[in-house]
């Protein structure tokens, strides 16, 4: 299946139906995840794939089957990240002393991940228009002029100002959730 750089949820769903079984089985076998974890990881890999497709940052899959290779590569990195996190949790639960630079780096990484998750939840509290605008601007990297046409704004400058206001609103919601 050829994947264009244009994101289509229906295409992602078709890809999911086509590759989910093998990907989940592979994650179970290679990384000993339980079926639930493996399915969640596989879905998360497809979501990353979708994000890259939306941003137009997927490589060109001229050869058949390359999108599958790419998907498996994303899943592999996600799996390894997950295992690193698990390892870290185990180490902390065993009250390991003498945390080194690497551990501090992981701490910082985990903290940032947690902040991003909070921001993601705050995003869901934004109004529909702000959500749509930020999605188009940040995820799809749509030019301001195109967003103006799609969302019926006066011009690109208006869109820019709206975008900054939406980011400001998002930050406020995020800050509220952290307090």
């Amino acid at each position, binding site marked *: 299946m050829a994947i264009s750089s244009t994101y289509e949820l229906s295409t992602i769903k078709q890809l999911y139906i086509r590759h989910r079984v093998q990907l989940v089985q592979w994650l179970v076998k290679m990384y000993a995840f339980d079926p639930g974890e493996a399915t969640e990881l596989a879905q998360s890999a497809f979501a990353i794939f979708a994000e890259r497709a939306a941003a137009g940052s997927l490589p060109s899959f001229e050869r058949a089957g390359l999108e599958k290779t790419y998907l498996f590569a994303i899943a592999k990195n996600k799996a390894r990240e997950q295992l690193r996190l698990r390892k870290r949790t185990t180490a902390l639960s065993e009250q390991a002393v003498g945390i080194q630079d690497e551990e501090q780096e992981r701490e910082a990484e985990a903290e940032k991940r947690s902040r991003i998750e909070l921001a993601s939840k705050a995003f*869901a509290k934004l109004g529909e228009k702000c959500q749509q605008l930020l999605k188009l601007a940040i*995820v799809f990297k749509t030019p301001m002029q195109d967003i103006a046409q799609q969302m019926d704004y006066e011009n690109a400058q208006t869109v820019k100002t709206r975008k900054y206001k939406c980011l400001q609103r998002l*930050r406020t919601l*995020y800050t509220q959730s952290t307090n």
Partner: protein
Amino acid sequence: MSDELKDIALAEAYLNDALSEEEKRVVEKRRQDDPDFARLVDDMDVMMAGSKAAFRQEVQEQLQELEKTLPRIPLDEAALILNDMDIPAAEEEDDTLQSSEEDSSKNRRWLYLIALLLIILAVITWALWPQPKAHEQLFAKYFEAPPVERSNSRSPIAALQQKADAAYQTGQYAAAIPLYDQLYREYGDSLSLYYLGMAQMANGNGEAAVESLNTVAELPEDIRYRQLQFYLALAHLQEGDRKAATDLLRNLDGEAAEALRQEMEKAFSQ
């Protein structure tokens, strides 16, 4: 536009790498000097990542809904083995090459481990495999079923003799044994008793062979005395009675008997 919105615009441009080198330096200097601005840049980074995460979450939720409508994924052993047959080599991701190397190194380690286990298993099997005992080895070395030597007979049992001899000559000792037994018991054919003993030895039954050959030796007919004694010794040897075999061999002339006796002495003195 308010100052905060201007700062958000600046932070966003900085994070998207949309500033000139000079503008970047100004922003970086301000980040160092102005903690509020530094926090805002940091927060904008998180807001943009959070917007992308929200999109991924939305896709993931769609896939979770889709998953509920799809058949359950088989995760039994057979399915997992079949899965191996069509796994692509994941190479596009940044650190996947390293990961592939790690995997292939892991696979190599497994292969070495399996090879080592096989070698250990082979050594253990070899060590525990029942080795033939000395008397069995000597028997195997010296015993060869002698060919049938029988003058042409026109007796009524000739057909049965031919049938028994044919089975014996072709190595079908199990088939020859009841025929020779019948020829001796029903018709008193003493030569058949001799070959019965040979067939029994060839068939691995030294005890029966000793009985048959002892009976031959007690018969009034003088049937190949020297060979008979030698084969009787071999039959004793086959059933593990070294003393009886040695006693018989000691009274025999001939190179084979002498060689076997010496080898027996050597083997059993160790």
